[in-house]
């Protein structure tokens, strides 16, 4: 089994990337670029039940569980949110439910994007993190009940 990078290591990579930027403009340009590069979600997934409630932009999130690891896919109609989501996926995808549930996601604060997590922003990022953890929790419970 090849060693999987830990969530903290992936967070650290992002923080290092951001440390190269001098201005907020550059940070946003980078996030926008990530957003543009995130592969679009297939149309069949863009349905109401996959929507993460956010006030202004629509976010769709789906999760799959394979070989003990959770894989996320997501999309949004707003590109900055999509960039933020892309980072979350980069950090959380490919981990066990337990690891995802435990993730502190301190990188969001360290790259100065905490405001986007605030309720007031209503852009669904906070709801997004919560939804990702909910998926992980559901897979974990599924696992446990399967063991019994």
């Amino acid at each position, binding site marked *: 089994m090849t060693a999987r990078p830990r969530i903290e290591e992936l967070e650290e990579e992002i923080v290092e990337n951001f440390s190269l930027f001098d201005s*907020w*403009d550059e940070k*946003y*340009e980078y996030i*926008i670029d990530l957003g543009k590069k995130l592969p679009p979600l297939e149309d069949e997934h863009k349905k109401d039940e996959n929507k993460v409630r956010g*006030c*202004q*932009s*629509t976010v769709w999130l789906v999760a799959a569980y394979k070989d003990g690891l959770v894989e996320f896919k997501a999309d949004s*109609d*707003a*590109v*900055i*949110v999509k960039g933020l989501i892309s980072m979350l996926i980069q950090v959380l995808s490919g981990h066990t439910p337990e690891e995802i549930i435990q993730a502190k996601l301190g990188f969001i604060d360290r790259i100065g994007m905490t405001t986007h997590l605030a309720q007031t922003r209503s*852009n669904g990022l906070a709801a997004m993190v919560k939804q990702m953890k909910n998926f992980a929790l559901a897979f974990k419970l599924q696992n446990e009940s399967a063991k019994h």
Partner: protein
Amino acid sequence: METLTRSELLFDVDTIREEFPILKRMVKGKPLVYLDNAATTQKPLAVIEGLTRYYSEYNANIHRGIHSLAEEATAAFEASRDAVKEFIGAAHREEIIFTRGATEAINLVAYTWARKQVGAGDEILVSGMEHHSNIVPWQIIAEENGAKVIPIPVLEDGTLDMEAFQRLLTEKTKLVAIVHASNSLGTINPVKYIAAQAHATGAKVLVDGSQSAVHLPIDVQDIDCDFFVFSGHKVYGPTGSGALYGKKALLEAMPVFHGGGEMIKEVSFEKTTYNDLPYKYEAGTPNIADTVALKFALDFVKEIGKEKIHQYEQGLLAYATDALEQVKGLRIIGKAPAKTSVISFVVEGVHPQDLGILLDNKGIAVRTGHHCTQPLMDRFGIPGTTRASFALYTTYAEIDALVAGLERSIKTLL
């Protein structure tokens, strides 16, 4: 020595800006460009210092105390009622009921007048450009009483479909509740005409003046509406202040709203009698400080002069409309011939939220989203817009900053 009042001087935006300390703020390292005035306006020193003075010098509960402070506070509170009366051209001071704002004022009418007067099979006409505040209270009562809330359609240019209005206005219509100026589009509706038509069929008329009070001279007697509501915080006053105007005879006949202190004449377990207008509708200790300071805001506006403000803001609106129309891919939503200084727009291929974030990063505050007018957004087939709304302290340079900020943001996003 004769001193010139402010209105005799030329409209000098730089001098006016001096009165608004917040405008000196930096946001994200850039000078604040505040273009979210339709959501709430900033406050002049007269209001900020007036609030401090109230709490430092004459804070007391009103109407009941015999001591000096109570008398001073009561006098200031009642002076504010006179100021509102004059501000909107009401005939009597008792026609002014203080509320937390427009929303509470609309709910007051819904829960007292409408609850009694709008019955099964009756209809309430609103417009397709109403703020949720002027839809939901009516829906609540309609559902309770088996009545219907019917929207007057909005045309492509953002004006009301007046033919449809004529058609929809029937014997069943008990109330026409209409926004004076749209917060999303800026459209100024012909409320005087609407009131005349509505009265001809026997319906009452409520005008939501949330967006008009700050931009247009208001004369409720000329409009001849039965109710008029507005929020103090959108007229340079404090949050938590606002008023309901109602024609005296109507207010007298309406049932009471909240029960409690202040709204009663005498209370006994056998029979409680209610106070006269306006106190009948002002139960409990009101928001004294903010209501007192509302007068300072209205005085501030009066001193500059509504006409002069309107003229200046219309200049800004025309300038901004021209400039924004040059921006590639930008489409203005709402092109009514008569508008307040509000511009909503969408940009091809760009989500309003992304624009809002990037503009904020440049210190420019605009509003993005549905602006609490979801049915209107549905009408235009859009999830939301970016909205820039101007006030008397907005400068032409700020509009240039908005346009430049937009150009750069759009380039980054596309």
